[in-house]
C-alpha cells in the first residue's frame, strides 16, 4: 500500500510542478469545447439538449486522452533512468502498475471535472445525481485507458516513434467514437471500425448519463447513437460500460504480466518532449 501511495503522490507532484503541461492540456480541451459547442451545434440537430450531447463527448475525450498520456509517462521515466530505481525496488509489480494507473486516473478525472465546470457556464445542464454518476464513469474510463496506455508503453522500444504512433492511432479513434461527430451521421462502411473502437462504448456510456436518458427506450437510444444494433444485438449504455470495464481488467492484467518481465534497459531514447 505504501509503495502504491508513494508512486501516486510522486506522479501527482510531478504533474503539479509541470505548469506548462497542465496549461496545454487545459487549452486543448478548452479549444475543442469552443469549436464543437459553437461550430458543430448545427450537426446535432434533432437531439434534445444539444449542449449536453456535445460537451459530454468533449469531457470524456479529455479524460481518455489525459489517462492515456499520463500513464504513458513511464516512457519518460524510462528515458530519465528513474524507471530502474522502481524496477529494482522490492515492490510487487502489480503495485507499480496500480500506482501508475491510479495517478493517471486521478489526473484525468480532475481534468474531466474541470471541463464539466467550464461546461456548466456555457450551457451544460446537470443535476447532482448525474454529476456524481459522471464522476463514477470518468473513474472507470480513466482506469481503463490508463491501463491501455501503460500496457502500450511497456511494449515500446523507442520513445519518440512511440509517441508519434500513439497520436496517429488515437486521432481517428477519437473521431470514430461519436464523441465529436455523432456515429449516426458517419458513413455505413465505417461501422465495423466504430464497433471495434473501445472509445465508442466509452462515449455511449458517458453520454447517456449526460443526456439523463435513464428511462429512454431502446429505439430512442439507437436514434441518438448511445445504443448500437450490432447484428441484432442491442448494445445499451449499460452493456457499453460493462465492455469498458472488461477491457480495463484485461489490460490491467496484461500490464502486470508485462511488468513482471519488462526489460526497460533496451528502450532507445532520442529526445524527450513534453506532452
Amino acid at each position, binding site marked *: 500500500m*505504501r*509503495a502504491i*501511495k*508513494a508512486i501516486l503522490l*510522486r506522479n501527482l*507532484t*510531478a504533474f503539479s*510542478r*509541470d505548469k506548462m503541461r497542465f496549461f496545454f492540456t487545459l487549452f486543448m480541451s478548452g479549444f475543442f469545447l469552443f469549436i464543437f459547442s459553437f461550430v458543430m451545434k448545427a450537426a446535432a440537430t434533432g437531439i434534445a439538449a444539444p449542449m449536453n450531447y456535445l460537451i459530454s463527448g468533449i469531457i470524456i475525450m479529455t479524460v481518455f486522452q489525459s489517462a492515456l498520456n499520463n500513464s504513458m509517462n513511464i516512457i519518460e*521515466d524510462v528515458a*530519465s*533512468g*528513474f*524507471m*530502474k*530505481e*522502481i*524496477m*529494482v*525496488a*522490492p*515492490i*510487487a509489480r502489480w503495485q507499480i502498475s496500480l500506482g501508475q494507473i491510479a495517478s493517471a486516473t486521478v489526473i484525468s478525472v480532475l481534468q474531466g471535472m474541470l471541463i464539466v465546470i467550464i461546461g456548466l457556464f456555457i450551457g451544460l445542464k446537470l443535476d447532482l445525481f448525474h454529476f456524481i454518476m459522471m464522476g463514477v464513469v470518468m473513474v472507470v474510463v480513466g482506469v481503463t485507458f490508463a491501463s491501455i496506455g501503460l500496457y502500450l508503453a511497456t511494449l515500446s522500444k523507442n520513445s519518440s516513434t512511440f509517441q508519434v504512433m500513439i497520436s496517429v492511432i488515437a486521432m481517428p479513434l477519437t473521431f470514430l467514437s461519436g464523441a465529436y461527430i455523432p456515429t449516426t451521421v458517419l458513413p455505413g462502411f465505417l461501422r465495423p471500425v466504430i464497433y471495434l473502437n473501445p472509445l465508442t462504448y466509452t462515449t455511449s456510456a458517458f453520454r447517456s448519463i449526460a443526456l439523463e436518458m435513464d428511462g429512454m427506450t431502446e429505439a430512442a437510444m439507437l436514434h441518438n447513437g448511445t445504443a448500437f444494433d450490432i447484428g441484432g444485438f442491442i448494445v445499451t449504455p449499460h452493456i457499453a460500460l460493462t465492455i469498458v470495464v472488461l477491457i480495463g481488467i484485461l489490460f490491467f492484467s496484461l500490464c502486470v504480466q508485462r511488468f513482471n518481465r519488462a*526489460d526497460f*534497459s533496451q528502450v532507445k531514447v532520442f529526445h524527450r518532449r513534453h506532452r
Partner: protein
Amino acid sequence: MSKIIEVRNFTKAYGDQLAVDNISFDVDEGSVFAFLGPNGAGKTTTINTLCTILEKTSGSLKIAGHDVNADKAKVRRDIGIVFQESTLDSNLTVEENLALHCDFYNVPKEEVRERIGFALDLVGLLDWQKAMVKSLSGGMKRRVEIARGLVHFPKVLFLDEPTTGLDPQTRANIWDYICTVQKQKNMTIFMTTHYMDEAEICDKVAIIDHGKIVAFDTPSHLKRMHTSDIVKIKTSDGIGLQEYLRKNGIAFSEKDNVFIVQSGSITATLELLSRWKDSIIDFEVHKGTLNDVFIAITGKEIRK
C-alpha cells in the same frame, strides 16, 4: 567469513553473443569487492543480473542465500544499487527522492527523517535537502544517488562505475564516503570500475575480459604475482653498474647512464641501492599498479 554473494557457472548471452561466459566467484560478507575490466567486458551485465533486472541464460546466482531469479523480492530488499547512469527523479527535491526510496524499501516511518539526515550528512549534502535535483551539478547528483543507495541500509551495495565522468577531487571524496559507511555498517560493497587505482582499496578484485574472469585475488597479491618494481637509477659509474646487473641476470635498459632496472622484490631493490650508493646520483622506485597487472594478464592496456 560467510559468503554473501555466490555465483556459479553464470552465463549470459544476447542472441549468440556471449556477454558473460561461465563465471563463478564468491564475495565475503563485509568486504569490498571490485570487478575490473574494459567497457563491454561483462561487468554491467553481471551487476544487472545480480540486481534482478536482467535474466540469466544459465548458472546460479545467490545473494544472502536467496536465488536472484527465483527470489527476486527478497534479493531486492537486501541490496542497494548505484547505477552507471542517473536514476534520480529530477523533478523532485533531494529529500523527496530519498523519502520516496524509503517508501519503496519500507523503511520504518519514524526512522525516515533520521536516516535521510544520516545519508545526506555522509555525502556532505545536508544543506541541499530542499534543492531540486535538476539544479545540482553532476558530482552532487552522484552523491545523492549514493546517499539514496545507502538510506535503507542494504546488506550489499552495488556500485556500477560510480565515479565515471567525475573530477579527481569528487572521485576521491566519493570513495571516502563509501569507505566510511562500509565500515560503519559492515556493508558488503560490490563495484565495477575501469579506473584501476580505485580498485586498490578493495579486499578482492576480479579482472574480467571478454566475459571471462582472468584473475581473482587481493590487489596486493596480484601485484606481487604479476608486476615487478621498476627502479630508475642515474649513476656516475655506468660501466660498473652495467657489469653488476649483467652478472646477476637482472633485466634492465640503459641510456646516458640512466638505468631502468626491474626489481623482483623490495629486498633486491634495497640491496642494489645500498651496494651502489656512492655512485648513485638520483633514483626513483615505481611500484607495480593494478593497471600493470591488467596489462600483464590480458596483454593489453585497459580500453576506456
